[in-house]
């Protein structure tokens, strides 16, 4: 029996994505033999069991927004979608907890929760496509992490299908839980190389009473950055303090910045009304060097954040390469200067700087007519990584074309524990079923 026949027999013909659509599931140019979209966790487990027995590789696929992340896989035999696992399993409103299938999109869950005045901490580019499982597997993070930290801090439990098809669960439904080892942490950010996240339980947050925003334009990046650091260093924590510069300014509507502005600072504050008023006043006082300061709230501010979060992901002109650097806060200023001074060689650059948590998204655009643009993008990435690592940080290429990936390690180094990582991969996925080659250190 062929693979597709076996799958059809095990799961029913509906679980198989029609052969003519399979090309759309290529990863870095590798087209899978079959694409499966199981309707239940059990079916998904059965699919993985079959792949494992047949010696096939499996590429998990949520909304497909992060498929450019990672090194080129060594094999893509079967793509397994989680889209069929999109139901709310349990929503305990009084407990502020939600258990949900991994295939649910972020937007659908946020819309659902908003009716109860609750929200998930998570943000991600393209929330109508991005699934919760994918967001966790890729550890996608966005500006609000300044206040809410990372997704690892809000996941109470995970359901995971193992490499032999076994269905397992870790963590639970309570915020405090030290029963057994905390494997949820291991799966978050593992890019589907240890197992497939099929369900998650989250701690929820109340929707803040008030959300307000300051948008300030600056004549120089230095001035914007300096203001951003002072805003982020107050005794209260804003939701976000982000600086945009260069081509990233396109995320902000024309009327919110003065012509000739070199950088913009976005500050978002949320909480109880009286506190937000004061935080707005105190933050605004620190923006006296700005060319212009505007206030935004409600839908206007939400649209602005959407545009900043989606920068480089949306329907506009996609960047040729998108990099993400993480540094200790105290080295962020030097890093920004270093990245700014690297030669562009005909490419154009935009940066989004997380001045409160030490992150820089650096995006390069290169039109098709720029000669040797792949080589130039690689060269920039290598120099940028050199600078970032000299300053004590990490630089990951989060998105680029397969052409740029040739000869480029998108991850760079890890802090340590390489042997432990390799052993864990071998223990949990001895046959190398999941996403072979896409992760760090050849995992």
């Amino acid at each position, binding site marked *: 029996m062929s693979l597709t026949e076996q799958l059809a027999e095990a799961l029913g013909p509906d679980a198989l994505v029609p052969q003519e659509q399979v090309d759309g599931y290529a990863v870095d140019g590798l087209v899978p033999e079959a694409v499966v979209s199981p309707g239940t966790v059990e079916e998904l487990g059965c699919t993985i069991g079959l792949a494992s027995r047949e010696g096939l590789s499996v590429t998990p696929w949520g909304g497909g927004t992060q498929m450019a992340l990672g090194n080129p896989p060594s094999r893509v035999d079967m793509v397994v979608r989680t889209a069929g696992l999109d139901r709310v399993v349990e929503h*305990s409103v*009084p*407990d502020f*907890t939600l258990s949900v299938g991994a295939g649910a999109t972020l937007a659908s869950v946020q819309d659902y929760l908003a009716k109860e*005045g609750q929200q998930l901490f998570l943000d991600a580019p393209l929330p109508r496509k991005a699934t919760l499982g994918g967001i966790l597997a890729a550890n996608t*993070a966005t500006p609000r992490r300044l206040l809410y930290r990372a997704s690892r*801090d809000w996941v109470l439990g995970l359901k995971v299908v193992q490499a032999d098809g*076994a*269905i*397992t669960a*870790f963590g*639970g*439904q*309570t*915020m*405090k839980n*030290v*029963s*057994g*080892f*905390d*494997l949820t*942490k*291991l799966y*978050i*950010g*593992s890019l589907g190389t*240890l*197992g497939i996240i099929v369900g998650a339980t989250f701690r929820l947050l109340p*929707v803040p009473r008030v959300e307000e925003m300051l948008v300030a334009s600056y004549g120089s990046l230095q001035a914007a950055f300096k203001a951003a650091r002072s805003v982020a*260093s107050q*005794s*209260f*924590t804003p939701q976000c303090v982000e600086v945009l510069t260069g081509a990233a300014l396109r995320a902000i509507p024309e009327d919110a910045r003065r012509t000739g502005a070199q950088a913009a600072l976005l500050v978002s504050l949320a909480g109880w009304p*009286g*506190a937000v*008023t*004061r*935080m707005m006043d105190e933050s605004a006082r620190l923006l006296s060097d700005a060319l212009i300061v505007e206030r935004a709230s409600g839908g206007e501010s939400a649209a602005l954040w959407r545009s900043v979060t989606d920068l480089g992901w949306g329907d506009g002109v996609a960047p040729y390469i998108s990099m993400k650097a*993480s*540094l*200790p806060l*105290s080295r962020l200023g030097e890093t920004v200067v270093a990245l700014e001074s690297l030669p562009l060689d005909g490419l154009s650059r935009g940066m989004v700087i997380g001045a409160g948590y*030490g992150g820089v998204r650096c995006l390069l655009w290169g039109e098709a007519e720029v000669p040797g643009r792949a080589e130039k993008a690689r060269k920039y990435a290598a120099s940028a990584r050199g600078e970032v690592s000299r300053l*004590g940080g990490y630089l*990951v290429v989060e998105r680029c074309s397969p052409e740029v990936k040739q000869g480029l390690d998108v991850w*760079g*180094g*890890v*802090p*340590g*524990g390489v*042997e*432990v*990582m390799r*052993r*864990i991969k*071998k*223990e949990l996925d001895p046959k190398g079923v999941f996403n072979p080659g896409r992760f*760090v250190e050849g995992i």
Partner: protein
Amino acid sequence: MKLADKVGSLLEGLQGIVGKEAVLFEPEDLMAFEYDGSIRRALPDAVVFPASAEEVSRVVALAYRERVPVVPRGAGTGLSGGSLAAQGGIVVALTRMKKILEIDAEDRTALVEPGVFNLVLDNAAHAYGLRFAPDPASQRSCTLGGNVAENAGGPHCLAYGVTTNHTLGMEVVLEDGSVTWLGGAQADIPGYDLRGVFVGSEGTFGIATKLLFRLLPMPEAVNTLLAIYRDLDSASEAVAAIIARGVVPTTLEMLDRPMIQAVESARHLGYPKDAGAVLLVELEGLREEVAETSRAVREILGGTGAQQVQAAQEADERARLWRGRKEALGALGSLAPNYLLVDGTVPRSRLARTVKRVQEAGKRHGMPIASLFHAGDGNLHPCILFDERVPGTLERVDKLGGELLRICVEEGGTLSGEHGIGIDKQAHMHLIFGDADMEAMKRVQRGFAPKGVLNPGKVFPRGAEAAGGP
């Protein structure tokens, strides 16, 4: 060769690494290390006190060569037997490694050695307008290395999270003595989150020799409210209403009637005789925020039938309101010579029901139970009161303890909220984890420690340890 003899043959080597005075092996010296804060006991064959990561590494490498179990230990305040040498071997006590290496006010981080006491770090951070948020009840005497091993909690976790949420990275000695660094201060670090899974691994993955923590700014304002209720149901109703209003207090602590009576008879704090529940609410943040949330909370306390409400903003007044909660466990001595503090967690909304079932179980077993709760995060600590001198009591306590955990699990909760599994709860792991779940955990453990030399005989049900052991 017997384990004791093996360890005996290593003594000279150990003394050569850490110095003669830093190795204990005489039975009378070892007895102090037979205990932790639990009711379990296990005698090690030797105790060593390394003074540096290098010494830890050399001790561990030496033990590894002979496959002698190595058991890391902080201050021994743990409540699940995590630092006991369940299978004998060498206890590596980290209490000499107690330097705060660096506090970085700009990055808001602290780098410390594992033997630093929790409260010492918190106090040191205050000088920079910062603090270390996790605050287990034993924070005066428990070490940060132990906090990380057990993923310790505390009464202020509702708003700030537990130890794992504040642990950024660590230098770790692996079981073969090799030293590596996991995690870091950067927001996104490539690779598996080994730091995340290391926290709460109960000393079985490695020994942390440096710890990097996140510090938070001190809050501008704090308001503590204490409400007294006639019954637990009304207090629970208040808890639910506070959360439903979108208020996230830093603390929602509760005492039940037997606990109040214990505190009252020992400390005379003036709680009314018919008090059925004491609820302690703490709110922190900007002045304006605390004013707004306090107003909301006061309204709820009044609306749910609180008999009395007291509030305090100044430190000494707040300490007075906290006294009953802080001294509750100490006061239990007035009721019985011993107690077993059970650490269960349920979804917050099931708390009141769970407590009723806990009380019924106590009655059925003929053993009194007094409880305190981190009500905001559903963490309950029923204390079974007993006298261990009465023959057969420990078995009965164990049985009742097991039943209480089963109740928590049936109510959608789990075995341990903040104390760990250790040897205390290993027999109950199957209540929440299936074979495949535990198999995956064991595989990860083998990834860190393939030979299973570190703290063997813990976490998993006996006879099912991760690796063969020595």
